C-alpha cells in the first residue's frame, strides 16, 4: 500500500486536520507521502516533513495553487494518483470541495467521511446523520477517501522526511479567489478543542452569546453553536456543529439552550462527556447528556462561572 495524504495548510503552517489523516493512513500502510500544494508553501512543507511516519513530502509550489481552488488542484491530484493505492484528504470543507472533483476525473467512486478502517478496501462511515454506520467495500483499484478527523488521533511530530518538488498544478482559469472573511479568535479551534461551550436558540441574541464566551474563556474552551443559533444570526456560520456543519469530539461538550435535534447530535455525540443545560426538561439533548441540568441558562451560566471560580485549583 502506498498512500498519498493531501495536506491542508495555509502555505505557512499545517492545519491540524492533516495530522488526523496521517494517522488514518498509517492504518493502511507505512509508505505515506504528504502533498503540500500551494504557493510559497515551504513553511507548510517543512512542518509536514516533521510528522512522524511520513516517508516523503511532495511540494507543489505554484501561484495557481495558492488558494486551494479545486479546479487547479484536481489535475495535480490526478497526475500523482497513479503512484498510489489510496489518496486521503480530511473531511473538512477543503477536502470535501477538492477530492470529489479529483475522484470524478479519475473515474473513482470516493468514500466520504470514514470513521473506521477495517482493511485496505473496507471502511466504516456514518450515514443518515450518524443514525446508521455503513461498512462499505470499494471495488475501485484506486481509493479516494475523505477522513472524519475526530475519529483518528493526531499523528505526532518527530519525523524528518525529505521534501521533494513536484509539478502538475494548472491554472484552469475557471475560478479566482476574491477574498475571505475569517473568524478571528484567540480561543482554541472548534474541531481540536478539548472543551466546547455551545449555544442554541435559547441564547436569544448575539449579545447573550457573549455570556458563553466568558464561560468558555474561563474553561479555555472553544465556542460552538447549533444551526438555529447560526440561522438566527447570533454567531457566524463557522460556529455550527452538526450533520452539515462541523463534527467535534471534545472531552467535554457543554450544550447550553440547545434542544438536541438529530442533525445537531450528529456533530457532537462522540464527545467524551456531554453536559446539557436547558430549561425544558423534555429536551432531547438530555437523552445523550452525561450530566443534565434543568435550569434557566441566564441564571445557570453566571452560577457556573462563579462555581468554577470558587473551585479553581
Amino acid at each position, binding site marked *: 500500500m502506498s498512500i498519498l495524504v493531501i495536506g491542508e495548510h495555509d502555505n505557512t503552517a499545517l492545519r491540524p486536520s492533516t495530522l488526523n489523516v496521517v494517522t488514518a493512513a498509517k492504518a493502511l500502510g507505512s509508505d505515506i507521502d504528504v502533498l503540500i500544494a500551494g504557493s510559497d508553501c515551504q513553511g507548510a512543507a517543512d512542518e509536514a516533513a516533521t510528522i512522524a511516519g511520513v516517508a516523503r513530502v511532495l511540494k507543489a509550489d505554484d501561484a495557481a495553487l495558492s488558494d486551494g481552488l479545486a479546479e487547479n488542484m484536481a489535475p495535480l491530484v490526478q497526475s500523482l494518483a497513479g503512484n498510489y493505492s489510496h489518496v486521503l484528504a480530511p473531511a473538512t470543507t477543503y477536502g470535501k470541495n477538492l477530492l470529489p*472533483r479529483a475522484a470524478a476525473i479519475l473515474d473513482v467512486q470516493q468514500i*466520504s467521511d470514514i470513521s473506521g478502517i477495517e482493511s485496505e478496501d473496507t471502511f466504516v462511515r456514518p450515514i443518515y*446523520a450518524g443514525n*446508521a*454506520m455503513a461498512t462499505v467495500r470499494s471495488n475501485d483499484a484506486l481509493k479516494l477517501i475523505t477522513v472524519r478527523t475526530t475519529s483518528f488521533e493526531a499523528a505526532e511530530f518527530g519525523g524528518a522526511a525529505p521534501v521533494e518538488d513536484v509539478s502538475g498544478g494548472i491554472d484552469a482559469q475557471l475560478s479566482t479567489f476574491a477574498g475571505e472573511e*475569517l473568524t478571528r479568535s484567540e480561543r482554541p479551534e472548534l474541531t481540536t478543542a478539548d472543551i466546547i461551550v455551545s449555544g442554541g436558540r435559547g441564547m436569544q441574541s448575539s449579545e447573550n452569546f457573549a455570556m458563553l464566551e466568558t464561560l468558555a474563556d474561563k474553561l479555555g474552551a472553544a465556542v460552538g453553536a447549533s444551526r438555529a443559533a447560526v440561522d438566527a444570526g447570533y454567531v457566524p456560520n*463557522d460556529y455550527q456543529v452538526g450533520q*452539515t456543519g462541523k463534527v467535534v469530539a471534545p472531552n*467535554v461538550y457543554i450544550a447550553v439552550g440547545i434542544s438536541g435535534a438529530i*442533525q445537531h447530535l450528529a456533530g457532537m455525540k462522540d464527545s467524551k462527556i456531554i453536559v446539557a443545560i436547558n430549561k425544558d426538561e423534555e429536551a432531547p439533548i438530555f437523552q445523550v447528556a452525561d450530566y443534565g441540568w434543568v435550569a434557566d441558562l441566564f441564571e445557570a451560566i453566571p452560577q457556573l462561572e462563579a462555581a468554577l471560580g470558587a473551585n479553581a485549583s
Partner: protein
Amino acid sequence: MKVLVPIKRVIDANIKVRVKADNSGVELNNVKMAMNPFCEIAVEEAIRMRESGTADEVIVVAVGPSQSQETLRTGLAMGADRAILIETDPIPEPLAIAKLLKAVAEKEDPGMIILGKQAIDGDNNQTGQMLAGLLNWSIGSFVSKLSIEGSTVKVTREVDGGLENIDLAAPAVITVDLRLNEPRYASLPNIMKAKKKPLDTHTPEELGIDVSPRLEVLRVLEPPGRAAGVRVESADELVEKLRNEAKVI
C-alpha cells in the same frame, strides 16, 4: 439562461431512521419521503433567478425510482418549469449520478447547475463537485450568497474558518448551503398546476451511462448508543462532577 436543478428524494428530515433487522440498510418501506432539504434551497434559488430575470427556464432533474416523480412535482409546484426523471432503482452512487447529470447537461446546455451540497441520506457531499469535474466547469461549493455579474458568478462559500469569496467563470456548478435562502412552500393552486407541467422520463441505458456500483455495502449497523446520564441540581454539583468524577476540567 437555463438553470438545471438536480434534486433527490430522501427520507423526510424529521423522521428517525431505523436500521433494518438484517443489517442490509435503512428501512425505507412505509417511511415518509420528501425532497432533500438542501435541494429545496437549490430549487428556491433557481426560481428566484427566473423571477429576477437572470434565468428564463428552471428544469428540475431527479435520478431514482419512479416515485421520484413526486419529488419532481414538488419542485414544479415550487415554480420550476419542467422536469426530467432518470429512472433507475436503486439510486446509484454519486459518481454515476454525476455522469447521468452530465449527459442531461450536454443535452440541455444550461448556463448554470444548482444543487444541494449534500443529501441527508448518504451524507456523501460529492455529486456537485463531481459533476463540475466531469464537465470541466467551475465549482462554487457550500454557497451562502450568489450573484451574477456579466459572465462572472460571484459566490460566498461557507468554509471551516468563516466565509470565502470566489469568482467563477460561467457556466458554473453551484452547491448550496443552508443560509442561501429560505425555500418557499408550494401553494395549493401551484400544486394543482404542477400536475400539468411536462415531466420527461429517461433511463441510464438511453443516456449510455453505466451506473453499476463501485462500492459494496457489507452491513449497516445502529451506531453505539449513548445512555442518558444523571441530573444535577446546581452549578457546584456540576463542577464537582466534571472535576472529580469525569475528570475533564
